[in-house]
């Protein structure tokens, strides 16, 4: 048990290091001389030389990586080339926006996704289960940007309930913000919910069929009590694991959904910075997103290990 946890932790740390090296190396390979790019074709040689030195472009790659990693670990993300401001100032507000979006998506997903999973498991084999499973299949297969497009067509163009573009910076007040965030959050929810139902249904059925739940039922406990006292505690591990996996999944889909709704979040910032070759911003965002992804996956593994008593091998 302790060894498994140590292995998982070590793997995460190694992955993080490799990711940082990979991100640094790939961004370094992006075409174009950064200094010339920033200053334009007509820049004087002196100006180019000064900027090259500031960006450490004259040093060998490995040395630059070491210095960059040191800066990152100290929380110094460098300066944005395009905006001419510290990276943290550029991505800070974007990160906050994405965080709000992810939070709203999770706030809808946790009750709906996990609740529906329970409904399908309790009603397994009945038409309700079959019906939900069919919707789940569609939600799991169709990519999030296509779901987002369909939601936009349905709920913003054909029946204009929500705004088609999530221009959150123009929102006034809390409820207006929620209103603006609704369509992108729903798009993220569909896929997360589908995935949760698919995975949770199996483990919930296993729990419902287990001896101790049967026992509780045979003792004559009311079904609600069985569900609350016996089923739900056992389902906690799988539920947390699926949710953590979904958070990891959010990393990719948030980029796509933000692009659909022109949402000023971290994902759209990444795409824009890649297009404008704003390397420090790309590096910082990639590293942040990869860290969240690795951390979420670590939590998913840990949840399975820590919340399942059967895996607590005596050591």
């Amino acid at each position, binding site marked *: 048990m302790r060894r498994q946890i140590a292995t998982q932790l070590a793997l995460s740390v190694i992955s993080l290091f*490799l990711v940082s090296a990979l*991100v640094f190396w790939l961004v370094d390979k992006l075409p174009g001389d950064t200094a010339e790019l920033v200053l334009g074709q007509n820049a004087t040689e002196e100006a180019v030389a000064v900027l090259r030195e500031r960006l450490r472009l004259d040093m060998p790659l490995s040395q630059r990586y070491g210095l960059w990693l040191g800066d990152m670990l100290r929380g110094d993300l460098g300066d944005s080339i395009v905006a001419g401001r510290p990276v943290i100032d550029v991505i800070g507000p974007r990160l906050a926006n994405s965080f709000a979006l992810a939070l709203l998506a999770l706030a809808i997903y946790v009750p709906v996704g996990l609740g529906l999973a329970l409904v399908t498991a309790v009603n397994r084999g009945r038409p309700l289960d079959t019906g939900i499973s069919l919707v789940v299949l569609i939600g799991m297969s169709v990519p999030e940007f296509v779901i987002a497009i369909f939601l936009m067509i349905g709920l913003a163009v054909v029946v204009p309930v929500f705004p088609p573009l999530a221009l959150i910076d123009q929102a006034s007040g809390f409820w207006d913000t929620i209103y603006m965030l609704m369509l992108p959050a729903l798009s993220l929810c569909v896929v997360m919910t589908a995935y949760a139902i698919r995975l949770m249904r199996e483990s919930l059925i296993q729990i419902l069929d287990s001896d101790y739940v049967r026992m509780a039922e045979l003792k004559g406990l009311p079904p609600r009590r069985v569900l609350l006292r016996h089923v739900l505690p056992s389902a906690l591990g799988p539920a947390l694991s699926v949710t953590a996996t979904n958070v990891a999944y959010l990393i990719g889909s948030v980029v796509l959904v933000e692009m659909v709704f022109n949402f000023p979040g971290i994902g759209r910032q990444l795409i824009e910075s890649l*297009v404008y070759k704003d390397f420090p911003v790309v590096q910082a965002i990639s590293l942040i997103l990869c860290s969240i992804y690795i951390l979420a996956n670590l939590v998913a593994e840990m949840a399975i290990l820590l919340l399942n008593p059967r895996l607590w091998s005596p050591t």
Partner: protein
Amino acid sequence: MSLAAHSKFSPVLHLGQGLSWPARIAALVILGYLVVALTAPLWIPYDPFRIMIGPRLAPPSLQHLLGTDQVGRDVFSRVVWGSRPVLVLALVTTTLAVGIGTFIGILAAYWQGVFDLLVMRLTDVFVAIPPLIIALLVISALGNAPVVMISIVAFIYLIRTARILRAATLAIVTEDYVTAAVLRGDSTLSLIGVELLPNVLGTAMVEFAVRAGFVIVFIGALGFLGFGAAPPSPEWGVMINEGRGVILQSIWPVFGPAMAMAILVVALNVLTDGIARRLETGHQGETA
């Protein structure tokens, strides 16, 4: 291209008898996509690249079944023509990913030792990187030539396939017939081809179907973000990206490609479920 697709799919068709009816319908739908892609010139009423072939942003009509886009191109012709880049890219990428992944997975399970350890640790590390981020970085660094995109997407999925095929092979590598073949002194290649591969072919087939679905979605997403196929191409992700800007004026430029992609991936998933269930019951008997 079509030959590779056939040799991969023919074993799937052989087990058609045991498939549930939704899976059979799904198989027919996918077959339909393949036939339309192969015979695309027969279906298109207009040149898919010609602008101002009709009015701009026209709704569906008998002249333009799925309407026209912002430069007056026929959406139906573009969606039909787009099935070619979508399916060719998906088949090449999936074949590479599952082919190489299967080979590495079997080899790791058979050789074990250092090679196995190396494969497992390397895949551990790469599985920990969010696929979309790494693909965006690699494509930005090396350019969006089809070779680059196919390579990086194939790589992302081959590491996942290799792990699954390794696990499947580990379950049979201790069987007597494998030991006998080793003692007989069969070469590694013939051992893999004759004893191991046929016994994990079911797993590899399910992998192919699963990964094909992921690959189509992933390549579509790259096209949508502007990092995949290049714009005049009617690849569906690219079409959705182009139509997104005018969605408030007309939904039709995005509706056609979005529908085409949605139906294809749903069909693929239904078929995959069917095959997986069929193989399970075929090998282990019904589990209650």
